[in-house]
């Protein structure tokens, strides 16, 4: 029986020639990841269990991105715990303020993860690296501790949903619209325990940044992982970054899928998710004009250079609407520097945006943009749960960078096509 792409990677890392959905396997890990929220819990578990060393200091990544630069003393204590652990074991891929980036933008950029890898991370959006043709999934802190100690973990081989992309994007539509549309179709638990495998001629239409955005939000449909085939764009991206051996896996022609979904990129419109579930999707034209107080452009979902360019193109020569705060957060130092070099930073500041050092901050209501009761944001982030960006009575509308930037200018949910020429 044929295997899906995910199943092939799992089989290879378990030293097996074949696996099928439902199999229980033990697999070797290429990278184990944690951040400043989850690593301290893992360190506690690791130490209490009596582990004395890590399996491979080059295969662990610790990224202090959530509450950094530290918002308060408690956060500083958490970072200190993670920092001391990294120092104790001389962790190679340790990133702190000044060279940190949001983990899921940072790891691909630094070449720490690449095609064919098997990755676990104590952060639910670890599924992002599926964009590179890797198996990558979010776990908890105890799993992280077990992974750091042993270099292995246990998995149940998932079945898969095949998502076939066809056609080409129309203007102002991007990867974010694809994933929001898909979550709207199948629901927040539509892919529970399954892989989302993206295939079809439409994949070639997607930039790597589009693919990162799509794979990133696979978890928002409950998926174990989201994955893309490796093509020339993937290889171009990893060239000069990823130094380990590139392993390309392809699904068998007779691979078994539990469900198939076809998305015609031609028919997609700019899409948003209304409060309080990512599956609560509408096209922008259905909700255009809804008043907002804040815009956030950034996060592990949409803080990459393409996202910054799209936002800057719309904000260039325009101003953020009165009574709207627009916070722009390049996801990594490299993206930040690129924004400076390309003049995007100037465009953001001229438009009246707050431009921040990389942080997850507002996405999880941590800091750098929490909202008061009754306030509403359009954000390029990934979750719009109750209280996600601050007060329990605040609201988050998920959108693409294009829609977020246009909404910042209009002071209400808007499509870029509604803006007057400048």
């Amino acid at each position, binding site marked *: 029986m044929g295997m899906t792409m995910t199943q092939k990677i799992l089989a290879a890392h378990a030293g097996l020639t074949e696996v099928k959905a439902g199999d229980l396997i033990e697999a070797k890990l290429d990278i184990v990841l944690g951040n400043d929220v989850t690593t301290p819990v893992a360190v506690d578990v690791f130490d*209490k269990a009596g582990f004395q060393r890590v399996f491979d200091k080059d295969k662990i990544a610790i990224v202090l991105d959530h509450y950094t630069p530290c918002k308060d003393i408690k956060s500083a204590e958490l970072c200190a715990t993670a920092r001391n652990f990294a120092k104790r074991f001389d962790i190679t891929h340790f990133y702190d303020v000044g060279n940190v980036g949001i983990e899921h933008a940072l790891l691909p950029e630094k070449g720490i993860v690449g095609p064919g890898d098997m990755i676990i991370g104590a952060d639910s959006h670890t599924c992002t690296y599926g964009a590179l043709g890797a198996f990558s999934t979010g776990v908890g802190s105890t799993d992280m501790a077990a992974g750091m100690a042993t270099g292995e973990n246990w998995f149940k081989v998932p079945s898969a949903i095949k998502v076939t992309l066809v056609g080409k994007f129309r203007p102002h539509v991007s990867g974010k619209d694809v994933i929001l549309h898909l979550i709207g179709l199948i629901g927040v638990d539509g892919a*529970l325990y399954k892989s989302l495998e993206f295939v079809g001629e439409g994949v070639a239409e997607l930039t790597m940044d589009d693919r990162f955005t799509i794979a990133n939000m696979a978890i928002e449909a409950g998926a174990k992982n989201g994955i893309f085939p490796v093509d020339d764009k993937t290889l171009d991206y990893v060239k000069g970054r990823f130094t380990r051996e590139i392993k390309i896996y392809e699904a068998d022609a007779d691979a078994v899928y539990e469900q198939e979904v076809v998305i015609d990129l031609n028919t997609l419109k700019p899409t948003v998710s209304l409060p309080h579930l990512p599956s609560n999707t509408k096209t922008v034209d259905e909700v255009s004009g809804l008043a907002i107080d804040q815009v956030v452009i950034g996060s592990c979902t949409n803080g990459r250079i393409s996202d910054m360019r799209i936002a800057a193109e719309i904000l260039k020569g325009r101003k953020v609407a009165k009574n709207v705060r627009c916070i722009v957060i390049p996801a990594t130092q490299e993206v930040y520097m690129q924004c400076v070099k390309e003049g995007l930073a100037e465009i953001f500041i001229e438009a009246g945006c707050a431009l921040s050092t990389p942080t997850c901050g507002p996405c999880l209501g941590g800091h750098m943009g929490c909202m008061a009761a009754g306030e509403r944001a359009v954000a390029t982030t990934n979750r719009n749960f109750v209280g996600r960006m601050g007060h329990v009575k605040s609201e988050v509308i998920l959108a693409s960078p294009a829609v977020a930037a246009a909404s910042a200018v209009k002071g209400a949910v808007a499509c870029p096509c509604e803006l007057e020429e400048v």
Partner: protein
Amino acid sequence: MYQGKAFQYGDNVDTDVIIPARYLNAPSAEELAKHCMEDIDVNFVKEVETGDIMVGGENFGCGSSREHAPIAIRASGISCVIAASFARIFYRNAINIGFPILECPEAAARIKKGDTVTVDAESGVITNVTTGEVFHATPFPAFINRIIENGGLLPYLVKKQEGEAKLTSILHLSRETASAPKSWRVPFVFSKRWAKSMATPSISPRILPVVVPSMLAESLCRRRP
């Protein structure tokens, strides 16, 4: 056996309402517990008593990977969670920290807030004492009960180390564990071949106790139609 009054919530109870991110920098489980569920039920922390039972609908624990979610629920006094289905990372995390959860759509649909409920985690029998209804959840394999009894995945692993080559080669047992009675040290005999064989539905529960739980925790999750 757990007994307590039920706190009933609906579908898609996410980790952001279980423990909002603004409290994730709290230094202890007790501190986390003070804010458990506050964004959807401000009275929860005032009303919850040790032993009480939380009930959710589909996809309980969706969202973030934060292990703080099951930690906060447990520290609030809740003895176990019953739901129609669990999000995958929450499920793994709960078992890994030794916190009992049960999947039972019927119980999740029928139990009302304030009902007195008893749960026998070993057999999976859930009784609504208030109404007299009895439900049957998928019982935990014996090994998961052992994880829970041992306080989680890593304490369990530590006690199971001897005989498991890969893990023992890098794990240095703590003094306390190393001096544990021989009888605790059940040989760890799981292998890839077993992994393959265990994938079939006809697996005997008798061989399960030697398996690391996180994967099997996953296997317990009910397939959605």
